[in-house]
C-alpha cells in the first residue's frame, strides 16, 4: 500500500498540471485531497508495519541488463520518514492556501516533489533511490524561482546547482561501487553483502557521504540552505527544511554508512586528533551545530534565523549518524522526524502567518508591531514551536537531541561537550527572536503608529490553525510518548548497524 503514496503524488501532480487555469479552489482541494490520502496511506503503513522488520512492497525488474529493480520496501526508518513526509505534505498544502499565482502549477510542482521524496524513502534499490533523489531537484528549483521572495532566482539556481553537484558526487560513487561490486544486482541489500575492498570504501564513502550531506546542509556546504529557505515560498521552505534535507541525511545513512561501513574505519594515523572519516564528519557536524546557532544569533531577518537554525539542527542528525552506535543513530533518525515537524512549524509561522500580514521579516521592524497583542495565535504558536526547537522536555526535539548527545558521548565525549555549546546558543537565538518579534515593547515612530491605528491584520484562517495544531500536536505527542516511533526506528537501526542485511 505504501507504494501508492508515490503513484498518488505523481498522479496528483499530473492532474494539477492539466487542470484548466483559474480553477484555484479546485486546485487547492485536489492538492489537499492527494496530500491527505498520502498521509492516510503513510499512517496505515506505519501502523501495519509496527513491530515488523523490512517489508518488500514491490519488486519487478526495471533495467534487466544492469540488474536494476523497481524495488520498493520499507523498514522502520522508512516508515517513520514516510509518515513525516505525509505530515509535511498536508501541512505544506494548508499553508499554501493563499497562493493565487499559477495555483495549479504550484501544486503540480509541490506534489511532484512530494512524490520524489516518498520514492527516496521507499527505494531499496541503489539506482532507483538515486532516480527519485534527482526527481526531487527540479520541482524545488521552480517552486523557489517562481513563487519565492528575496533574491529568489539566485537562491533557486544556487539550490539546484548545489543539489545537482551533490548528486553528481553520489552518482560517481554509485557507478564506481556498481563497477567494483561486479554483481548484477543493485539492490541495497545485495550490495550490502558485496564486501567492497577497504581501500575502495575509504575513498568512495566520503564521496557519497559528502554528496548526500550537501543536501543535509553539512557545513561548509550549507550555504544553499539559508538562502534557499528564505527565498522559498512558505510551503517550499517547510518542505525543504522538513523533508528535503532529510533526503540527504537518509542517503548518508542508507547508502553511505550501510554500504561502505569500513569507510568509517580508522586511517591508521591521526592528524590533529582526526584519525578517520568518521572524525572528519563528526567535526564538520559539530561545527555546523555551533556555527549555525551562532550565525542565527546574529541575523536581522526573521526567516534567516530559522534558516540557520536548520543548519544547526541538521548538524545533530549528521553527528548522530557518525556515532555509529545504536542510541546515536536512533537519535539521528528521531531528529530527522522531529526537525521535520518543528522546522515546518517555524517556517509556517514566520513565512506565512507573520510575514503575509506584516510584509516584513526584519526583526527591527517587527519589534515595533506588538505582535503578541495583535497576533496572539502566532505568538503562542511560535512560543510552542520555539520551545520544541530548543529541545525542551516534552517535545520531540528533546528525545532526539538527548539520544544524539548520549551517542556522541559514548563515541567521543568531547563531541558531546562541543555540541553543548550549540544547544546553549540555540536557546539564545530562539529566545532573542521570540522576544524581539512578539514580546517587545519598542515603540514605532509616531508616524507609523498613526498609520497602524485602526488597521487590523487579517484574521487567522482555518488552514493556518489546522496546520499549526497538527504540527505542534505531533511534536508534543512524540515528545511525550516517543516509544511510538522509537520501537520502529530502533529495530531498523539495529539491523542496519549489524551490517549487510539491513
Amino acid at each position: 500500500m505504501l507504494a501508492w503514496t508515490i503513484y498518488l503524488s505523481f498522479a496528483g501532480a499530473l492532474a494539477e498540471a492539466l487542470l484548466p487555469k483559474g480553477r484555484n479552489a479546485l486546485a487547492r482541494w485536489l492538492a489537499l485531497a492527494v496530500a491527505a490520502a498520502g498521509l492516510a496511506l503513510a499512517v496505515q503503513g506505519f501502523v501495519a508495519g509496527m513491530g515488523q522488520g523490512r517489508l518488500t512492497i514491490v519488486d519487478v525488474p526495471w533495467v534487466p541488463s544492469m540488474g536494476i529493480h523497481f524495488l520498493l520496501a520499507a523498514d522502520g526508518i522508512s516508515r517513520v520518514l514516510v509518515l513525516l513526509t505525509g505530515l509535511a505534505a498536508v501541512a505544506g498544502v494548508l499553508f499554501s492556501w493563499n497562493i493565487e499565482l499559477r495555483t495549479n502549477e504550484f501544486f503540480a510542482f509541490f506534489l511532484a516533489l512530494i512524490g520524489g521524496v516518498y520514492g527516496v524513502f521507499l527505494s531499496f534499490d541503489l539506482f532507483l533511490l538515486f532516480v527519485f533523489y534527482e526527481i526531487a531537484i527540479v520541482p524545488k528549483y521552480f517552486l523557489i524561482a517562481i513563487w519565492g521572495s528575496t533574491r529568489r532566482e539566485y537562491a533557486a539556481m544556487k539550490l539546484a546547482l548545489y543539489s545537482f553537484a551533490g548528486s553528481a558526487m553520489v552518482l560517481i560513487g554509485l557507478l564506481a561501487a556498481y563497477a567494483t561490486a561486479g554483481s548484477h544486482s543493485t539492490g541495497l541489500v545485495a550490495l550490502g553483502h558485496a564486501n567492497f575492498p577497504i581501500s575502495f570504501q575509504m575513498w568512495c564513502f566520503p564521496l557519497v557521504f559528502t554528496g548526500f550531506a550537501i543536501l543535509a546542509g553539512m557545513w561548509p556546504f550549507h550555504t544553499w540552505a539559508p538562502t534557499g529557505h528564505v527565498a522559498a515560498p512558505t510551503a517550499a521552505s517547510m518542505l525543504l527544511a522538513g523533508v528535503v534535507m532529510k533526503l540527504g541525511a537518509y542517503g548518508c545513512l542508507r547508502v553511505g554508512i550501510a554500504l561502505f561501513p569500513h569507510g568509517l574505519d580508522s586511517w591508521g594515523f591521526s592528524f590533529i586528533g582526526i584519525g578517520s572519516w568518521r572524525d572528519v564528519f563528526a567535526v564538520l557536524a559539530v561545527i555546523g551545530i555551533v556555527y549555525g546557532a551562532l550565525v542565527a544569533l546574529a541575523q536581522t531577518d526573521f526567516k534567516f534565523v530559522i534558516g540557520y537554525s536548520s543548519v544547526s539542527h541538521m548538524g545533530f542528525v549528521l553527528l548522530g549518524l557518525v556515532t555509529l552506535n545504536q542510541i546515536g543513530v536512533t537519535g539521528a533518525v528521531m531528529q530527522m522526524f522531529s526537525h521535520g515537524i518543528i522546522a515546518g512549524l517555524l517556517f509556517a509561522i514566520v513565512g506565512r502567518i507573520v510575514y503575509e500580514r506584516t510584509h516584513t521579516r526584519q526583526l527591527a521592524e517587527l519589534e515595533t508591531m506588538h505582535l503578541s497583542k495583535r497576533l496572539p495565535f502566532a505568538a503562542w504558536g511560535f512560543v510552542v514551536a520555539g520551545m520544541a526547537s530548543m529541545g525542551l522536555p516534552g517535545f520531540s526535539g528533546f528525545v532526539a537531541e538527548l539520544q544524539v548527545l548520549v551517542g556522541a558521548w559514548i563515541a567521543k565525549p568531547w563531541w558531546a561537550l562541543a555540541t553543548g555549546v550549540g544547544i546553549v546558543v540555540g536557546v539564545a537565538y530562539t529566545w532573542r527572536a521570540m522576544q524581539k518579534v512578539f514580546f517587545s515593547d519598542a515603540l514605532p515612530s509616531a508616524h507609523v503608529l498613526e498609520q497602524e491605528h485602526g488597521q487590523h491584520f487579517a484574521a487567522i484562517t482555518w488552514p493556518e490553525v489546522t496546520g499549526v495544531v497538527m504540527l505542534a500536536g505531533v511534536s508534543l505527542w512524540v515528545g511525550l510518548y516517543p516509544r511510538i516511533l522509537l520501537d520502529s526506528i530502533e529495530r531498523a537501526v539495529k539491523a542496519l548497524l549489524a551490517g549487510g542485511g539491513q
Partner: protein
Amino acid sequence: MNYERLFHATLPETLLELAALLVLLVDLGFLRKASLKTRIVSSVVIGAGGCLFAVLVLLRNGAEAFPLGNWMSIVKGIERPIIPPDFATIGLLLGGGPYVTVLQIGILILTILTLILLVDTQFTRHAGEFVAVVLMAASGGLLVAGAQDLLVIFVGLELLSLGLYIMTAFMKGSGKSAEAALKYYLFGGMSAAFLLFGFSYFYGLSGSTNLWEIQRSISMSGTNPLFYVAWVLVVAGLGFKIAAVPFHLWAPDTYEGAPTPAAAFIASVSKVASFGLLLTLSLNWLSPGGPIYGKEAVVEPYLRAVYKTWPGLSVIMLVVATASMVLGNLAALTQVSVRRLLAYSAIAHAGYISLGIATHSSYVGLGSAWIFYGSALNPAIRMNNAVVYYVLTYGLTTIGAFGVVSVVERATGSDRLDSFLGLHKRNPLLAAVLLVLFLSLAGIPPLVGFWAKFNLFAAVLGVSAGPVPFALVALAVALSAVSLYYYLQVLKRAYVMHAIDETPIKAHPVTMAVLVAIAAAVVILGCFPALLQNWIQSFYPVL
C-alpha cells in the same frame, strides 16, 4: 562481384534515392503551379513514405552484409562456420553488424521527424529540392553507418556532407545561412582532405582498404609509427563530423545560420551516422571482443593475437573527448542564442560519447568474453549498446529541441534567450515539451537522457577499470552538473521570468503533434529504460 547481392544489401539506400527522384519528379513535373503548401506536403509525404519503406525493409531483413570476395577463404585454418556469414565483417564492403541495423533504423526515423518538421516552415520555395537533398544525405548516412571499407566510408561521408552543405545554404535570402554554409563547407572540405590523407596512409601501410584486413596486416607486421600519423588525420576528419573539440569551430555558426530543419538534421542524423562509423572503426581497430567476432577471437589463439588493443587511437580519442566535454559545457554557459547553446551542448554530448568510444579498446578480458557472447552482459556489447542508445536518444531529443526553437523563432523572430520569455503563458504545451527535452539533455531522471548517460558511464567503468577512465567519468558527471545551469537558463525564461509580450504563440498542429510525440517518447523511454535496450539487444543473434 555479385550485383544481386549488392542490390539487396543497399536496398534501403536505393529506396531513399528512388524516393528523392520521385519527389523531384512530382514537385517539378506535376506541381509547378500548385501552392507552396501543397508542394511541401506532397514532398514530405513521399519522402517520409520512402523512409518508412526503408525501415520496413531493415526490420525484415536487417542490414545485410556485402562481401567483396569469398569471405570464407580469407581466414584459413578455422572450422567453418563459427559465426553466421552475415555477421562477419571479413572482407566486407558493407557490414551487417546488429548495431548497424539499429543505427540505420534510427537514422531513417530521425529523417522522417525532420521531414515532418518541414511542414511548418517557409524558408524556401523549393520544397522538392530540399526534401530530395535530405533524402540523399540520409542515404549517405545509411552508407556511413554500415561501411566496412575505407572507400565506402569516404563515399558515404561525402554523400552525407554535400547534402548538409546544400541544406545549410538553402535559406537563400539570408546572409547568415550563406555564411554558415560557407564556413561549414570550408571546414568540411578541409577535414575530408585530412581524412583521405589518413586513409591513404592506411592503404599504403597495409595494402588494403578493408578495415579488418588493415587490422590484421598491422597486427602481423607490428605497429608502424606512421599509423599514429594516420590516426591523427582520421580523427581530425571524423572529429569534424561529430563536432568534437578542436574540430568544432563550425558548429555554433552552422547551427545558428542554417534553416531549422537543416540544423536539426545536422545535429541528429549526421551525428548518428558519424558515431556509427566511429563505432565500426573502434570495433575493428580497438575492440578485442566486439560483438562481431568476439567468439572467434577467444576460441582461436591465432585470432586472439590479432585483436591487440591499440592504445594510440584510444589516447587520441580520450584527449578529444575530454576537450569536448570541458569546452562544450563551459562555452555553453555564456551563450545568449539558444541555437548556439544547443551547438555547444552538442559538442559536450559528443565528448561524452567519444569517451565511450575511446574506452572501447581497453577491454582485456578475452578469456571470459565468449561466455557472454551475444548477451547483454558482454562488456564490449554493453559499450556498443550504450553508445547506440545514447546517440539515438540524443538525436531524438535534439530534433525536438530544434522543433521548439523553430516555432519560437517564427513567432518572435529570434532565437535569443529572451525570446523564450513567458513561453509557459504563450503556449503552455510547447513550454512543457521544452521542459521535458531540456531536462532530458541535462540528464535528469526519469527522462531518457539520464539513462543514456548512465548506461554509457556504467559501460565505460565496466570495460575499463583504472584511474584514468574513472577520472574521466567523474569529470563527465561533474560537467553534466554544470550543464544543468545553461539548460535552466532557457527554462527559467520559459517558466519563471515575466513575459514582455503575452500574445499566444501558435504552432502548426502537425508540428505540435510531432513535438508532443517526441516529448512523450522521451518520458516513456525514460520511465521504462529497458524498452529501448531490449529493442537494441533484440538485433543480436542468440547463440
